[in-house]
Every structure is written in C-alpha cells, then in structure tokens.
C-alpha cells in the first residue's frame, strides 16, 4: 500500500466554518441586544413588581432551559433536576453566611460543589433507562431535601436559611441594591442562555440529539453515550444551580421548598408548556407559568387543583407545548399559502 499524497485523496468535506462563525456573531449580537433591552427596562417601567418578576424569570428560566438540554436535546427525562436549583440556593447562601467570602468566590465555589454532586449522582443515574432514570433522579432529589430538613444545625431545617444573606459589594456592584440585583440577574440569564445555546448548536449538541433519537446507533459509530450523557447532566446542573443562586439572592435566604420535588415537577411542566422543540420554548413556558402561578395564588387557595387541571389540559388535550403548537400551526399555514 502506498500512501496517497495529501492532495490526491478524497476531497475533505466542505465544513461550513464561516457560517458557524457568523452564527455565533449573530448570537452574541442578539444576546447583547437582549441584555441592553432588559437593562434599560427600569428606565421605562420603574415598577418594582415588574423587576421582581424578571428576576424570578431569570432564576426559573435558567433552571427550565437547562432542564430542556436534558429532556428536549438528550431525551433524559430527569424528575430530580430541581435538586441542583436547591443546591445552588443553599450552597451560595451557606457560603455567604458562614465563610464571609466575596460574592464571586461564593458563586464559583457553589458551582464547584454542584459540579462534584452532579458528577456523582449523574454517574449513577445516566446509565438507567428512561423511567428508572426519572425516578432515581427524583429519589436523589428527595434525599437532598430530607438532608436539608434533618441537618438543622447547618441548614436551619424546615425554617430555611434565615437572617438574610450578606451581600458585600464587589467590582462596584452592590447586590443589596435592587437595581444592581436586577441588572446582575439579567446578565446571568443572558450569559447562561447564550452559553446553553452554544452548547446546543455545537457538534456536541448534535451528538446529544443523535443519542436522543437512537442511542444504539450513536454508540455504534463510536460515541461514548454514557460520557456524553454525563457531561450534559453536569453542565445542565451548573445552569440550574446558577438559577438557584439568583433565587437565593432575590429572597435573601434559602428554603427547603427550593429543593422539593415540586420544583422539578414545575420545571417539567414549564418545558411542556413552552415546548421542548425550540431553544427558547422553556423561557416562554417560564413566563407563562409564573403569570399563571401569580394569578392563581391571588384567586384561590387551591393552587394545586387549578394548576393540575391546566396541566391536564395541555397533556391530554393539546398533547404538546404551546410553542410547539404555535410553530406547527404557523408551518401549516405557510404550507397552505405556498400551494
């Protein structure tokens, strides 16, 4: 066998590199524009209620979008993703209360704790088949929740972390100032969404879609399915944890409900509501669920009953998320017009 000179072999596939680069530039521009719009919002509407709403959207939106990386892109139906939300809130709150380090250090340390925890739990879980995976992640969520409840000396038990989280200023940012907190939350949201979109559009993101569609075939062509699933499990946990940090900063504390299974249930419902076929679907779902929650709590004390009926309407009635529904409707209309 003689080796072919490099220029005589088959033509290398024309990989559209510039295209990738322009798309990333476009994403950067969109992210910047979104951030500028959000940051300028307080100048137009100074209502505290609206700003609070956006901060909560940032916390839940990061959490829900990261869950979509698992459910929509990889086909991993995690029912315990909320544990990382709780872990982020408690990790950050405890770090600030007990050690007195600065905010960025505590943030990075919280992410490090989440990383290790997600690595251990993920290593156990991602091997399991779908329904087992859902329930074992749920079981771990309940383990973390019951640890928080029973370790009273550290976590304050069912009272939660009280007494407020100290928020010393750093880099000229004072998080105890409501406006600073708002802008920081928006920045975290936009950066988080941008990074997650990069992950989803990267070759790795397409590997995940392939694992979702046919894991056996993916492993035949040499993809280490377990490692890919574990990687996305850990990455998603980091973003969920960031959502938890925003929540802890917002309420200046951490409560066991942040780690309770209903957070995971809400996350799944948000994804269902917004739809898992689009990247921004979970964000739409977050806004809808928060509006729904706020309205329902104002009207009735039987919040679960109403929410349950709405969920049933979507799950059994529509059988898809709102964004999926709208997109399909739009595509059908366009097709009809094309003919």
């Amino acid at each position, binding site marked *: 066998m003689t080796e072919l000179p490099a220029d005589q072999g088959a033509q290398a596939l024309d990989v559209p590199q510039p295209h990738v680069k322009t798309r990333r530039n476009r994403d950067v521009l969109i992210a910047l524009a979104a951030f500028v719009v959000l940051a300028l919002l307080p100048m137009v509407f100074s209502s505290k209620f609206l700003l609070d709403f956006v901060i909560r959207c940032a916390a839940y939106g990061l959490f829900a979008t990261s869950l979509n990386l698992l459910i929509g892109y990889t086909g991993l139906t995690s029912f315990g993703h909320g544990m990382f939300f709780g872990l982020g809130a408690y990790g950050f709150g405890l770090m600030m209360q007990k050690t007195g380090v600065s905010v960025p250090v505590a943030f990075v340390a919280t992410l490090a704790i989440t990383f290790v925890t997600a690595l251990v739990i993920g290593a156990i879980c991602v091997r399991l088949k779908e329904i087992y995976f859902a329930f074992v992640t749920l079981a771990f969520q309940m*383990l973390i929740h019951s640890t928080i409840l029973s370790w009273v000396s550290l976590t304050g038990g069912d009272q939660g972390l009280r007494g407020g989280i100290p928020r010393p200023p750093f880099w000229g940012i004072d998080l105890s100032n409501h406006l600073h907190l708002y802008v920081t939350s928006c920045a975290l949201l936009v950066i988080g969404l941008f990074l997650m979109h990069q992950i989803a559009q990267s070759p790795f993101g397409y590997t995940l879609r392939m694992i979702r569609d046919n894991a056996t075939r993916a492993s035949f062509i040499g993809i280490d399915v377990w490692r890919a699933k574990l990687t996305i499990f850990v990455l998603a946990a980091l973003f969920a944890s960031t959502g938890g940090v925003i929540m802890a900063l917002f309420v200046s504390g951490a409560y066991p409900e942040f780690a309770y299974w209903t957070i995971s249930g809400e996350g799944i419902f948000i994804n269902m509501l917004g739809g898992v076929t689009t990247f921004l679907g979970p964000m739409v779902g977050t806004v809808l669920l928060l509006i729904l929650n706020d309205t329902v709590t104002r009207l009735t004390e039987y919040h679960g009953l109403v929410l349950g009926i709405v969920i049933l309407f979507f799950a059994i009635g529509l059988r898809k998320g709102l964004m999926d529904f709208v997109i399909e409707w739009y595509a059908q209309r366009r097709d009809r017009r094309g003919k």
Partner: protein
Amino acid sequence: MLPLDIDALTGCLASSACLVTQTTSGFIIGMLLFLVAVGLTLIFGVLKVVNFSHGAFYMFGAYFAMTAYQLTGSFALAMLCGAAGTAILGLVFERGFMSRVYGADVLMQLLVCYAFVLIFDDVVRMIWGPEFKSMGMPAAFQVAPLFIAGGVVPPYYLLLIGVALAAAAILGLGLARTRIGKVIRAAAHNPGMVSALGINTGLIYGGVFALGGMLAGLAGALAAPVRSLTPGMGFSVLIESFIVTVIGGMGSILGALIGALLIGMIRSFGSLGFPLFTEGLMYLFMVIVLVSRPTGLFGKEVA
C-alpha cells in the same frame, strides 16, 4: 458530622426485648410499603407505566377508612371502604386519563400523574382540611400488648402483618394459578396477541390498575390507626415504595416483598444507630443495588 449512635444500635442488638420491638416495627413498615409497592410493580409489569400518583391512593385509602370508621364505628367496614373506594378511583383514573397517554412518551405520563398528585392533595385538603387527622385505634385492639421474649408487640401490628401477608399470598397464587392471573400475565407479555384472542385488554388494564389502587388503599386503611393523616402523606410513601421496587426489581412480586422488608428493617434499626441519616441509608442501599444489579435483585434482564 453525621450523628451516629452506634452504642444504641449494638445495645439493641444485644437485648432480645429491643430486638423483638424493632423487628416488629420493621415488619409493619415493610408490610405497608409492600402493599403499596406491589401495586406499583404490578401496574408497571402489565401496563408499562409507573403510576407516579400511586401515593395518592394510599392517602385516599387512609382518609376513606377514617371517615367510614367515624360514621359506622366498624373497623372491618373501614378497611373495606378504604380498599373498595380506591379500587373504583383506580379504575376511573386509568380508563379516564392514563389510558390516553399510553402511546405518548414518559414525559406525558409523568405530567398527567404530576397533575393528579396536585389535584388529589388539594381535593383531600378541601374535603378533610389541611390539618393532621388521626383515626384512633379501634376498640377491639385496645387491649394489653403481647410480650414476646420481653419485647412489646401491640396486637394490631400482628393483624396488620397478617392481612398484608394474606394479600401477598392471594395475589401471588392468583397470578400463578388462576385463569385471570394467566390472562394478566399474558397481557403483560404481549397485549396485541391477547387482544387478538378476543380478550378485552382495556378491561384487563383497568382491572390491574384498580387492583393496584386497591392494594395501596388497603395499606392506607391499615396504616390509618397508627399514622397521622395529612394531605401529601402519600408522597414519601411513594418514594419509599419506588425505592423498594428498584431494589426488588420492577415487575417482581417476590422482589417487592423482599425489598419492602429490607427497607423496613433499615428504617427500624437505622433510626436507632443513625437517627438523622436513616433516609440516607435507604438511598445508599438503593445505589449499591443499582450499581451492582441495575435491574434489581429479582428483576429480569429485559424490563
């Protein structure tokens, strides 16, 4: 960091009185869990769905029994109401809602069940109120406890263990020996074939769901005199019985029994030695089983 009390544990293991008391308590925890878990595993085996709202049936069983007992004063009738009420509920739930999402993916099934957990908890809160309730021990069992090898055993515990074991035996024999049992096993294996032979699989599915609901309701009714009743009481039971089915293997009745007893003992003795880490112990055990045998102790390879 973790509060350990090894002395209490070894001290208990050395004394026969404590050993008997703790073993009995482990048995009743295990038996209640078994009744819930066996329904879960049966529904999974035949319908291939995990009934995430199974804990609600346990809760309804307890509340139905309490109300029936308060109205009639008859303990037997209370048990009957708990079991029959949840059986009907199971049938309605399966035919009306769950059967609509069989073809859909796991996400839809989880969502429908999640919706019902929320709805059922609020319905209980509406009817019976949010506060803790208790049914009280029926007069027939308010007798002096038995002493076995120095350990205290309330007679009600013996009844509870007896009823649960009887249910296990009837279920096991029924599935293995009767015609209906054979049809159910066939439906679990190949529903298309069963349906082609002229058997109404919808009826089988509804029936199995009702049976599973009934067993959970019976567990709730049996637990009502010894536990406090609260909306949401089903959820921790659901998680524990899920751990039981994971340990025992999904779809295996024997596995559910062994798994439930193991968890019962871990809870009972763990609460002595590791008071704050009892739950953690259960999870640890589950993880060990999952890592060494991913399909559970008695699970089949293809699940």
